[in-house]
């Protein structure tokens, strides 16, 4: 049984811009539009109970994950809630390295990158402060900085540093969001966490995106890779998309409610993630007995009432693509490696 509830996906409102390759323009193909829609829908559903797994089979996997991730980011930007940022900052374990940018009038308002380690929370009156020990090269001893909710959100405290390069990526993403008419809060761009974890082979994923740009309608195309604001794999720099190897021993999904699994190796990890929405993308050669077994293990726990159909209906995949979506109860990953349902 599939439910309808307050999840609303106004797919028609978004403009799907043209794409550019080597100076030639391409309208957004139907399969790419559908993958963007799917990414949006899967992100929007993370607000609700339960989990969802979508398995997509395509004739050609190149760039498919990139469009899906873009959809996730579009939805994330739309539904962003500042107050949750504060909750997630407060829940950071002691010792977590955080980054922010300070603008000082003494420095002509120029932003300066700062970093530090979380010491803990303190309370003055009825106000809570996150206390951070500021990294400093000065020999005059450690300084601490207490962030109130308002100051923390205005500084944009993140879990990776925002270098000039990252700044450029976020600005590119900002232009894409504007071009697609996404109604979003600018604070989302520097919200603490990344939004989407993508398990993919880094080299092939990025080389597939080489030369592909999104027409931001202001005459200057935004490189697709830029629009995804990919954080570096070391985790030191901030980004909206975290790209990790399918062979990583422990999937770092505690900060992500959407995980995209790109290809056969990544999709073998379907049962290793407890993310609220998981999207596995495979080409036809990759959908083999092993993947069928992995899907079979999950579909035994199938609970389709956790799927929320949008008010304007489900967009069906194009003719050449196959898709299956099933709901699952919430999980706590347990020692058997399989999700423990209940």
């Amino acid at each position, binding site marked *: 049984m*599939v439910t309808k509830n307050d999840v609303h996906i106004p797919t028609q409102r978004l403009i799907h811009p043209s794409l550019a390759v080597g100076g030639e323009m391409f309208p957004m193909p139907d399969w790419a539009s559908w993958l963007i829609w799917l990414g949006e829908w899967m992100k929007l559903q993370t607000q609700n109970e339960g989990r969802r797994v979508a398995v997509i089979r395509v004739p050609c996997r190149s760039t498919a994950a990139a469009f899906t991730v873009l959809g996730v980011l579009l939805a994330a930007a739309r539904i962003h809630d500042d107050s949750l940022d504060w909750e997630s900052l407060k829940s950071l374990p002691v010792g977590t390295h955080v980054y922010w940018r300070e603008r000082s009038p003494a420095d002509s308002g120029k932003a300066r990158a700062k970093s530090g380690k979380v010491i803990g929370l303190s309370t003055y009156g009825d106000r809570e402060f996150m206390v951070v020990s500021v990294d400093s090269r000065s020999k005059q001893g450690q300084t601490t900085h207490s962030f109130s909710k308002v100051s923390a959100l205005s500084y944009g405290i993140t879990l990776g540093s925002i270098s000039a390069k990252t700044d450029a990526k976020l600005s590119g993403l900002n232009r894409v969001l504007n071009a697609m008419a996404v109604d979003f809060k600018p604070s989302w761009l520097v919200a603490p966490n990344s939004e989407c974890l993508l398990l993919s082979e880094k080299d092939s994923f990025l080389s597939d995106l080489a*030369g592909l740009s999104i027409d931001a309608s202001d005459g200057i195309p935004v490189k697709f890779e830029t629009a995804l604001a990919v954080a570096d794999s070391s985790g030191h720099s901030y980004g909206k998309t975290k790209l990790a190897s399918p062979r990583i021993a*422990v999937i770092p999904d505690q900060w992500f409610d959407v995980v995209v699994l790109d290809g056969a190796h990544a999709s073998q990890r379907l049962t290793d993630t407890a993310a609220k929405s998981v999207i596995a993308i495979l080409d036809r050669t990759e959908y083999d007995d092993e993947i069928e077994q992995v899907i079979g293990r999950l579909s035994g726990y199938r609970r389709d009432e956790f799927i929320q159909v949008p008010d304007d209906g489900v967009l069906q995949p194009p003719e050449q693509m196959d898709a299956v979506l099933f709901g699952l109860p919430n999980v706590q990953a347990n020692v058997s490696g399989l999700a423990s349902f209940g």
Partner: protein
Amino acid sequence: MKSDKTLGFGKVRNAMTTQNAFVFAVTANKNAANCKINLVEIDFPPVVEIIRASSEIFRSIDRDDEFQCDIARTVWKLKTTSILTVLPFDDERLRMMALIESLDKSVDSVPEISDSVKTLRNVVSQLISASTNPKRTHLLKLIENVSEQQARIALVANLHGLSTPGWPQDLKADEIIPSAGIEVVRTRKEISDVFFDNIIIPGNPRFAPRKFLFDLLYGGRSRNITVLGYRAENIWIPSPANMPKSDIFSKTRSSTRIEKTFSVSRPENVELIDKWANDSFWSSLRRQHADSVPTSDRDARIRARFVLFADGSGAFLPEDGRVVEISGRFDLGRELDIREDRLPRKSVTDLEEGDLVMMRLSGSGDYLDDVANDLMAQAGDGDLRTRALEWKDWLYRTLKHQGEGVLAMKLKELDLTVRSPQYLWAWASDAVMAPHDYATFSKLMNGLNALEPSHFGPEIDEYIGAKWTDMESVKSFQQRAGMTIRSALVERVQDLIKRRQRVDTVQTIELAGVKAGMMGLMRVSAVDSKSMMMPLSRLFHLEKIEHS
């Protein structure tokens, strides 16, 4: 956007191979959405006779007797050659008379097959003397119909692996038909970035490599696919598996149209001799290695696949592992960028025919480890690896005593969830060096200490720190070893590329300044579709394979 016409479905290879992945995906999606498969059936009674006689011989022989197995292989080759070839039957490269003569000689040893061999001799002799090959006639007609406007046509020559009977490995398209635009395709690599106006599969594709076949049929390489075969071949076209039913998405399988000009056989309707000929090689190989025993506690058994190389050798490679694979750069003459962080690698499960992988030709075990060990010894710290990894023995003992489930539960209490409890064995073995970050390693050690306290007592943190530092040093030596190997290999390969040297089977490479043994670039001929558990010490160990 470009129209279909300007995108050119298969019109210009060079343009398509240099276009980016998105443009490729656009065309592949369009082709896949509009693809139809046309089955063309030929009635030809002599083929029925050949199949019947071959089946009788196969039923009569003793498959436990190696000599009689050779007879079965010869019969299978003769049968498959006559069915799959599109050359005139009297073409000498088919060696059909030689195969018959070989069978004639066998009759003395296995008299039960004499009548069937006689039938085969008569039918094949008639085919050779008549010379007309009806499959060839149909193929020429098909090509004539579709070859207007310089259409690009792929003729699929890999229906039973690279040495498909009836398709000599060096057979070129213009030797089959002198017409422009026809290409003989044998490997997945050859079709990885191209489109065709038509793809012709000249026989039953049941035993064609699955990924190659699925790319052809469902990967959007063409909108028009023709399968041309004799009715007696019992043609079977595999479909993508059904995905689980979904209430949300109405369709769970793509809708490539198969135009049935005749009934398609069911998958189980397969000639036993074909199944045997295709399975016997791999199953006998697996049987031979079933008893491989580990050499030590750390010599964990892991899933491995046997990879067969074009020089007739082969090796087990770890299923989860990756190997250096440079066919793209080598065959296309692309520059190897020495500034790259690492050499191009490919997962063992993704290896396919035609790949060019780097293997160690002398010695055994992991080449990188040995070079790194040399460097450690040169730096006066020859014990570093042993010291850094001694905790693995502790982990191994604990896993043995307590079981992986108990340790995994303990780690869960310490807020560490591993991808599966079985994965703990990988950490205990030499398969992986260590957890990827300090926090995970620290939790693992603390979990061990909680279950089976060692003599470290309160200094466990110090121990963890020391082991982590040692492992970082090992990693640094591994990186230096990698750089040393890479530089030497890149230099050598660039030189080979410059000299336009082809590598058909193996190219030996001696790396100056690298002592750990001789390297080689090996051309992959086939990969076992099934894996088996093998001790780590048996991996990457080249062995000669005797197989006709």
